[in-house]
């Protein structure tokens, strides 16, 4: 049963207050995009064993969507941050590097 800290209201709540929203930082492909890009956008997922970036909504709370960096094998949460960004802030990347040197995720490292 995870604990997550919502970066908007500052509440550290248990998993049941939140709703998991899948992989973070997906780039939307709309009309005019190639079949491959569109398939990838809708279906292909990193699904890593280790560092993962994902979306959560504080549904029984302030209602805001946010991002979390989490390890899928230890469930360690490296940090949470705003949803209004297309990539993790440096501070989060640094926090991960400190714990998991040499990590990569998509193009991030």
């Amino acid at each position, binding site marked *: 049963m995870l604990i997550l800290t919502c970066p908007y209201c500052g509440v550290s709540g248990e998993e049941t*207050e939140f709703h998991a929203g899948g992989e973070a930082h997906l780039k939307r492909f709309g009309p005019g995009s190639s079949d491959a890009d569109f398939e990838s956008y809708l279906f292909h997922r990193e699904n890593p064993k280790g560092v993962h970036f994902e979306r959560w909504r504080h*549904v*029984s709370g302030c209602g805001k969507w946010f991002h979390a960096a989490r390890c899928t094998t230890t469930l360690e949460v490296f940090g949470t941050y705003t949803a209004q960004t297309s990539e993790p802030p440096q501070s989060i990347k640094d926090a991960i590097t400190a714990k998991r040197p040499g990590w990569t995720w998509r193009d991030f490292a």
Partner: protein
Amino acid sequence: MSDPVSALNRVTFDGFVKVEEMGPRGMITLRGDHALPEVKNAATGVAGVNFPGQRECRVVEERGLAWMSPDELLVMVPHGEADTAVASMESDLDGTHSLAVNVSDARAVFRIIGPGAREVLAKLCPVDLSPEAFVPGTIRRTRAAQVPVAFWMVEEDVFELVCFRSVAAYVFDLLKTAAIPGSEVGYF
């Protein structure tokens, strides 16, 4: 206009705490950037209390402001004043991107009164309700069993809890069950 009727029409229960449905309460959802003075002024103007900080809740009698999210406030006024309060805020906010909606009738308000109040809520909500962790002046949005709620303390041993109108009976039943004499936990 016939008298407004709240979800459970002021039903009460006496257990090891007292549970009361509070009847109609004027509530307005105000969405807007808290940083904007227009938003601040519009809200404090109708509520007559200071603007709340993150997760703060300032309530005096039936008026008050609660911080719901970085761009949402819950504005409380007497039920009869809600529409005029919305109108006055809308005029204050003319030209400012914002949204004020009267949600008075979409909600039910309960009071949980007595020394066991923290305990009753702690049976239903995954929240640290110990005196050192939860004090008057803060609002917590969370879930009670299976529905979303928000609550704050009016004073020690007195909580106000807000839920959606449609589940008022469910929440009241939960509170009753949690407050059955003999089921005191004796933790706080």
